[in-house]
């Protein structure tokens, strides 16, 4: 690999090797304030490579590789190299993480306690997390929350925030000073733009938090909150975790422990302002 980049996001260190300089240059810029892997030893290695040597130049397309391969994943054009790198990092974590139970949830923190938000793409967990961060909460991550199976604590994983389609313009308007990656049009997931988390999120990424509330948000409905029965919450979280099965006993104990300790609430909200109000009320009632 001609070009390489290393970064640590929360407890996870990555090394990205690439056949092309361009994606590395973008990663270097966007992650410039992040630390390097502990002892320079990455947890996961990612490769961005050309299937054939001449494909580095002719209709260049990026294949994703690493310790864990998904050989049937289709390649992306080079101009979407940043997306390929982010997807590759996701993939290695999803298939290989063993120290933490990966929850497909966003997380914010206040007073040492974490608020987790989980749900399908578009439900609003990513948007809600960034909104709350703009309202004084510490941003821990928009896509993965790491549950330490030994301690039950939530560790931050504040990688670049992946904004999609309409959320891009909304974020650009709400945070005109935020650092952004290139606008990637017409990716397999629509238009995407990456936003760098705020300085506080990066500076405090190594401080874990005790999980205190688990929300299942739904955007675009009249405001309503209702408890989610423990078994339903448990099953939904097994679906939302990418390494629950791989972790075996540790995963079972960690997840049943989380459900035992933390209220699970479904929250429907019509807009951001309402969401914040509802969240603050739920938090106050804990």
């Amino acid at each position, binding site marked *: 690999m001609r070009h390489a980049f290393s970064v640590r996001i929360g407890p996870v260190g990555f090394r990205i090797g690439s056949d092309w300089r361009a994606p590395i240059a973008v990663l270097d810029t966007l992650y410039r304030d992040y630390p390097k892997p502990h002892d320079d030893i990455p947890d996961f290695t990612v490769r961005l490579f050309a299937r054939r040597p001449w494909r580095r130049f002719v209709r260049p397309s990026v294949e994703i590789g690493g310790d864990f391969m998904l050989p049937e994943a289709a390649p992306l054009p080079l101009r979407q190299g940043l997306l390929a790198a982010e997807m590759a990092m996701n993939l290695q974590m999803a298939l290989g993480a063993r120290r933490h139970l990966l929850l497909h949830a966003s997380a914010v923190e206040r007073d040492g306690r974490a608020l987790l938000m989980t749900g399908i793409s578009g439900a609003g967990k990513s948007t809600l997390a960034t909104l709350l961060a703009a309202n004084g909460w510490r941003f821990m991550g928009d896509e993965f929350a790491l549950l330490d199976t030994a301690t039950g604590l939530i560790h931050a994983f504040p990688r670049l925030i992946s904004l999609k389609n309409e959320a891009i313009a909304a974020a650009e308007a709400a945070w005109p000073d935020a650092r952004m990656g290139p606008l990637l049009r017409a990716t397999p997931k629509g238009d995407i733009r990456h936003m760098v988390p705020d300085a506080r999120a990066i500076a405090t990424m190594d401080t874990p938090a005790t999980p205190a509330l688990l929300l299942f948000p739904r955007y675009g409905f009249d405001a309503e909150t209702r408890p989610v*029965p*423990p*078994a339903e919450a*448990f*099953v939904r979280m*097994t679906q939302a975790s990418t390494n*629950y*099965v791989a972790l*075996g*006993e540790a995963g*079972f*104990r960690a997840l*049943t422990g989380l*459900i*035992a300790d933390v209220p699970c609430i479904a929250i429907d909200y019509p807009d951001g302002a309402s969401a914040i109000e509802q969240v603050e009320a739920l938090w106050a009632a804990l």
Partner: protein
Amino acid sequence: MHQTIFHGPPENGLFVAPLDEFTAVYHRASGITHLLTEPAPQILAMLGKGALSLDALLDRLARDYDLTDGTREALAARLDELIESGLIESGLIESEPVERT
């Protein structure tokens, strides 16, 4: 005379986490997590004390619980489900099972 008996996982073969009307169960031998609703957890508990035939199991359950309109067929269906999930196994023996207390 042959008889079918059913047995559950060995001691420490399961982690059990009651949630609400459902109970989550981690089966260590397979690594699979199951979600059970009554009477499955109660059946597993009963079989955990020793292998039982269908009739013996029905008797024991009737002793500890009020089975109201529970039928032998219903219990057989529950046992089939538990077998399919791998949580219990059935075997043939030649005589009455030795009762462990």
